[in-house]
């Protein structure tokens, strides 16, 4: 589609314009002071709250569409009657600025699931209201492997606009109708595209940097996974896994949830949808006390298999964007790159 230029100053003004127009603006932003500083995607009111040059935020943008907890409906009891109160499924217009490509791609992958048998109104409502302005990445660190799952530091998947850093600002690729609309609404902030070459160089450099981290082919991996459900590899690799689920919490594509009825007092309450993860023992625990995934080996196998075999089989998408957050977050030193590489080798050997 088309391309534009967005200077640093214009980007700042754009934030102001959007806020003034009543649009919610979300961007990587720092909170806290000193050692307790956190970089997260969060709502900003002013451009200077935005931090675009500090790398990948700790948590992914998944929670913008699928919050850690959300109310599905509320109830009130009087005598034996229950009164239900629905929740709003229309959401405030939102622009995400500075989403990393590995984050931007994730909602599009999860869209498949959210619109498969049941169309999830809350997810879709938020998706519709949101425009994603992605920012091309220069490669975070050695745990990045987006290129191994078919994406890249400059991937446009899931993005409405992709910004590529160039001198003095950004080279902006307008990718979707939503992106076009944004440019149209705030045309005075976008200039003529003039740095396509410089942007191209940036993208190449970044891609080369990430590609070195992991080179595997997802296809034989999927084949190997399908054939090695009971492999002893799982027993060895998962010994150090605590089953804490930190990986799932930071993962942009993990989307399991639990539905709970949470009374507020006794006579009223809410049904909520909360994040859950297949990594804890409770996840598959039956009421009978039986647990089909009784050990951590089985749980960890589930995570890998789901992402690289089950989901692809059903939706032709790998449920992973290669952001590397799971490797960074794991307190036990589990590393998905290492595992994919191992499997890749085993698959190669088998083939």
């Amino acid at each position, binding site marked *: 589609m088309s391309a534009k230029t967005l200077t640093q100053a214009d980007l700042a003004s754009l934030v102001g314009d959007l806020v003034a127009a009543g649009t919610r603006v979300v961007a990587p932003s720092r909170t806290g002071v000193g050692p307790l500083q956190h970089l997260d995607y969060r709502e900003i009111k002013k451009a200077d709250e935005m931090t675009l040059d500090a790398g990948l935020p700790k948590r992914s943008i998944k929670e913008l569409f699928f919050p850690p907890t959300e109310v599905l409906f509320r109830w009130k*009891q*009087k*005598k*034996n009657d229950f009164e239900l109160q629905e929740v709003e499924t229309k959401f405030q217009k939102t622009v995400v600025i500075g989403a990393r490509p590995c984050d931007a791609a994730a909602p599009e992958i999860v869209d498949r699931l959210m619109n498969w048998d049941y169309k999830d109104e809350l997810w879709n409502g938020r998706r519709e209201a949101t425009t994603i302005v992605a920012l091309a990445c220069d490669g975070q660190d050695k745990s990045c492997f987006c290129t191994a799952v078919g994406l890249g530091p400059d991937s446009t998947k899931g993005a409405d606009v992709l910004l590529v850093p160039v001198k003095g600002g950004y080279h902006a690729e307008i990718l979707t109708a939503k992106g076009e609309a944004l440019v149209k609404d705030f045309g005075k902030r976008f200039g003529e595209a003039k740095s396509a070459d410089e942007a191209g160089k940036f993208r190449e450099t970044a891609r080369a940097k990430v590609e070195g981290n992991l080179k595997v082919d997802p296809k034989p991996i999927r084949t190997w996974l399908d054939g090695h459900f009971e492999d002893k590899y799982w027993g060895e690799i998962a010994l150090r896994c605590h089953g804490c689920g930190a990986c799932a919490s930071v993962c942009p594509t993990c989307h399991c949830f639990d539905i709970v009825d949470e*009374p507020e*007092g*006794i*006579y009223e309450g809410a049904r909520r949808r909360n994040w859950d993860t297949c990594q804890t023992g409770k996840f598959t625990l039956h009421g009978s*006390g039986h647990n089909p995934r009784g050990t951590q080996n089985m749980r960890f196998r589930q995570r890998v298999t789901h992402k690289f075999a089950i989901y692809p089989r059903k939706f032709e998408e790998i449920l992973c964007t290669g952001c590397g957050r799971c490797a960074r977050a794991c307190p036990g030193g589990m590393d998905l790159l290492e595992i994919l590489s191992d499997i890749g080798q085993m698959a190669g050997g088998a083939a």
Partner: protein
Amino acid sequence: MSRIGVFVCHCGENIGRTVDCAAVAQACGELPGVVHSIDYKYMCSDPGQALVKQAVAEHKLDGVVVAACSPHMHEKTFRKTVANAGINRFLCEMANVREHCSWIHEDREEATQKAIDLTRFIVEKIKHNVPLEPIKIPVTRRALVIGGGIAGIQAALDIADGGCEVVLVEKEPSIGGHMSQLSETFPTLDCSQCILTPRMVEVYQHPRIKLMAYAEVDKVEGYIGNFTVTVRQKARGVNASLCNGCGECQKVCPNKKIASEFDAGLGKRPAIYVPFPQAVPNIPVIDRANCALYKGRARNAKKDACKKCEEVCGRKAIDFDQQDTFLTEKVGAIVVATGYQLYNIKKEQDKEAISGYGEYGYGTIPDVIDGLQFERLASASGPTGGKILRPSDGKEPKTVVFLQCIGSRDPAKGIDYCSKICCMYIAKHTMLYHHKVHGGQAIVFFMDIRAGGKGYDEFTRRAIEENDALYVRGRVSKMYRDGDVIKVLGFDTLSGEPMHIDADMVVLATAMRPQPGIESLAQKLSVSYDRFGFINEAHPKLRPVETNTAGVYVAGACQAPRDIPDAVAMASATASKILGLFSASELEREPLVAQVDQGTCAGCFHCVRVCPYGAVEHFEVKDRKGNLIKTVAQVNKGVCQGCGTCQANCPSKSVELQGFTDQQIFAAINAF
């Protein structure tokens, strides 16, 4: 869905005046699960209870909430009512809208709102109540009495006469306690030994009493109806089954200069001795600290120094190598009757707070004695043969000063309480003194005369009016020895005159304190004690001889200062309680005890550490083949008293106290 009935009581005007009872009934009627809600003038009256019964039947209630007075008042009443109506009594609870609401508030609107809230809490709580059945425990119909003073003797005899077996444990070589040391007893002036000795003999001969003198309780395990007690029989050095009490050994013992405990240090005894001639059992013990043979052995002497007693004993009863033995006794109830000791005015005291009396010379003046020593001086069987002679030089004291409240009522010296018996025995002493020393002057420094007992005040008046005792109201500031006399610097607060007296002898009415070691005994028994070490009764008025631990009772001066009639009355009371307990072969207990969910218990055993009763045990969960799966906690229902400390300390909430389960409390808070 629950079917709960709410019954709001007006208590005449008591609740109705400030609480709109109809509004409470109406508001509670709106609550989910409540199928019946009414108010009534007097819910505890017969017609009121009939209303409850009728409603249970009519509305098939599975929970009854009575909003009325304190549950301490009528919970039993209403639980009985619902039981009569055919549902489990633990499905009935009370909301306290009288003591905690109508009586303490004036604003009708506020009070009504509060009454609704309080009732709602209980309605929500009761939704989680479950039927509970009383716990049945078998009873060993045998009692242990600890202490062989007059209280212990009386308790043992009463229980044994009632047909049950008794084990009586006394730590001294003979039973009899302090009463055996007394000369006469107030207010009748009977000879103490004359009334006590027959009872001691009765104990000895009773077929159902097992007497263990010179023995101490070592360990107590179990719970009401089922205690297992380990008793340490201390080594006498004399084989009790061979000894016939002839006394020859005592005659030949070369060391006869040991201060006699029985004579409160005023008389002497040999190293092998019975404490006094009428001792029961009449079997001597060897005082190993003073016996030449043991002293020699302690020094690793090559040859035993002296075996005179062994040589003279025709029955070969002397056994120098005897060791302490441990015996296990099964009993169903325990009486603590360990009695008292007297406050020691010396500086070295056993408790930090208790300091001794420097102003009276810290016990360094030989003619300053305590009440028990005076008893021995006055006793016909005492070291002076009943003559009042002062210890230092054996002279007859012409002026004797008696000081009351020494230690007692003296927080500065560490004791706040009144020792209760001193007023009476000092009056007795002045009489005995007056009778024995002609022309002698008894002067009593007192603060108040406390003579509340049958014939007591008449007795003290007689001491003053007819026995010439001079009562001076005031405390003595200082005493010191000055040549032959003791200077006593006191003050008469009635006349405002200083009283500087040259006394020949001074008798101190020192405070009664519990026996040393009572705390460790109390800990073994899991009974509580106050800061002075006196055993706490379960209720000061209504349960005066029970303790907080079911099956353990208390009699005599180990509970508080007591005179003989009090001690005897308490002892008989414990006997009647115990005979009542033993009247059935099983006993029922409230089922409000803790229960462990062994599925979720992680076996950290925090519960074991906090349980005041040792009621939580380890339990091994095994699979069908007998392989150990895990070790978890298990509550012994017989021992648990239902405090719930285990539950609060359980990290995974795997233990639940029946009647106060997390579900119940959570519901009540959630209804807030």
